[in-house]
């Protein structure tokens, strides 16, 4: 209720500070001395959905950093046991105690696939592939996209017109197929997947930032920044850019989710990372033919991992969006 901020209230604290003639009465408000920041911790405590999202985000980053190192089996090395189903859930506590305190061999919590790889270890190790591809690609596309979007929105010029037309054209491409072409034709390496994802997601950021910049341009503070005597570049980068970042920052977490989806989708159809890299989509693909035979465990766990990860990132994105808007 912004229009209540004008309500007159108590009285001026220190008369000598204020030219009395100018200000007969003052409003006492609580004046923060520091800039307000989003209180993540408070949000985590108060909002269950956001807390869940943050948990997933933190866990996924942790696994991306350390997953392969702390997994019970080598995610790339087949054990002798092929197509072992996971132990019944009721035995898990006992097995856990046996492993941790009695030094028994760790069980295959999630079973093994038909070449004998441990599904649990691979599910844990996969974030290093999925998440790093997704995070790096999302960050690259955001940095490039916001910069280009700022230029396109702020400076009206034939070159920025061409930029926008090209970006529009890229958006008219079918995303999945374009990514497949880019990866399959340039070699199925992690780097190439990152490049493909960056290309595919950049237009969204260009468009978002440009729209936001165009929305900021008629704002008074932009004109005020000029009236003070700043050059156009200073106005663009110091005033307009920081005020146009919010939509892109919110989009970032959604894009990470989509990028995970696309990375795993590409591997699923055989146009992503090469086997036997531990990667969720690939694991689902390997397990897919076994599903009709009843070997559900090979695909179900990596799938749950993707599903929860994407949901987690979406929940964080949504939470931030609510706070910023």
């Amino acid at each position, binding site marked *: 209720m912004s229009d209540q901020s004008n309500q007159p209230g108590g009285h001026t604290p220190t008369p000598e500070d204020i030219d009395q003639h100018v200000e007969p009465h003052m409003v006492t408000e609580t004046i923060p001395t520091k800039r307000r920041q989003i209180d993540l911790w408070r949000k985590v405590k108060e909002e269950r959905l956001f807390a869940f999202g943050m948990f997933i985000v933190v866990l996924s980053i942790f696994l991306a950093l350390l997953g392969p190192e702390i997994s019970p089996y080598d995610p790339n090395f087949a054990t002798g046991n092929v197509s072992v189903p996971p132990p019944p859930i009721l035995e898990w506590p006992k097995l856990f105690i046996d492993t941790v305190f009695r030094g028994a061999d760790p069980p295959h919590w999630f079973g093994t696939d038909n070449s004998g790889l441990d599904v649990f270890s691979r599910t844990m190790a996969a974030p290093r592939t999925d998440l790093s591809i997704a995070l790096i690609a999302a960050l690259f596309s955001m940095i490039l996209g916001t910069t280009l979007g700022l230029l396109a929105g702020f400076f009206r010029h034939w070159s920025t017109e061409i930029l926008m037309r090209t970006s529009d054209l890229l958006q008219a*491409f*079918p995303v*999945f*197929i374009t990514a497949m*072409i880019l990866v*399959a034709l340039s070699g199925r390496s992690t780097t190439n997947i990152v490049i493909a994802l960056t290309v595919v997601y950049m237009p969204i950021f260009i468009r978002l930032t440009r729209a936001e910049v165009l929305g900021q341009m008629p704002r008074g503070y932009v004109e005020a920044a000029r009236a003070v005597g700043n050059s156009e570049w200073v106005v663009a980068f110091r005033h307009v850019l920081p005020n146009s970042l919010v939509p892109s920052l919110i989009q970032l977490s959604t894009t990470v989710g989509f990028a995970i989806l696309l990375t795993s989708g590409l591997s699923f159809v055989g146009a992503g990372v090469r086997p036997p890299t531990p990667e969720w989509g690939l694991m689902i693909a390997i397990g897919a033919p076994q599903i009709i035979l009843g070997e559900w465990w090979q*695909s*179900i766990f990596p799938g749950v991992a*993707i599903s929860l990860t994407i949901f987690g990132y979406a929940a964080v994105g949504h939470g931030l969006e609510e706070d910023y808007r």
Partner: protein
Amino acid sequence: MVQRFIVKRVLIALLQLIGISLVVFFLIRLLPADPVARIVGLNATAEAVQQAKENLGLDEPVYQQLANYLGIFSTSNDDGILQGSLGDSWVTSSPIIEEVTRFLPITLEMITYALIIAFLLALPLGMSSGTRPGGFADRFTFVWGLFAGSQPEFWWGLMFVFLFFFVFQQAGWPSAPPPLGRLNPLMTAPDPITGFIMIDSILRGRFDVWIDAGKHLMLPVFTLVFVVSGPIVKMVRQNMIRVLRSDYILYARASGLPPQKVARYALRAALAPAMTLTAIIYGFLLGGAVPVELIYSLGGIGEYSIRSILNLDFPAIQGTVLVIAMVSLIIYLAIDILHAFLDPRITF
């Protein structure tokens, strides 16, 4: 006015198509993939490589290849785009147009049904949750919208196969058919008229096919509805909340309009953005339903495009991208025109 708007939009769409075909053409040639090696094998003799290059037309300079592709100043005997041909596949040697017209309707049929169902489901769900924000239905719709908005549809598809085919069969319940195509292999499909098997079977009076095709389409369509309804529900809900808080709804109530009339005012305003979103998702699914097609072995345009890409079948890649882009542009155009009719604020 309307005609001018449509003509203008069609012209822009044509320009976009030209742009897209050029970009694809250069993109696949710039990327470091060697289709010749793929076809003749790595150990082939130099003559064999040269022969293959000539056969594929890759011995010509790039600008000449482009000319042949487009069909202007062509040096080849084959037709180009301007003559209405997308070339022949390097793998099967049959015309791309023929292959695409065989595979495209399969995908179109699946996503059309999925989106119609999703839209019809999302509308009442989103509206009822938007009318009573904070209620149970609203909480559910909200989480659903957030959750299903981006989910690995290929994995969900597998899970549905596992549940409705494997588990149901084991339990002896009536189960879904195995995910192996769009018809029981013992059944012959009617000759295509529209390419939509559910429609063709009725037109040809083959009700047995209609029932079997329906069973086979059930799970893929369900998978897509599951994933796609999320964002549409979310959109309808948000719009409904926004519209119900608007000044014109408050004013309509303040002028004593009956509740049914007020509800119609609200629906009118909330509908258009949801429709646009549905169209955008349609365009996205054209190329994005690949994994679902794969799981159910439907053999649609998506599967065809993977095959072409992995085989480095350049004419087929160019053709599919162009056709998919064209269909989505047609859909966007149709929605824009519909939108303009619904909303007078959009100027022609």
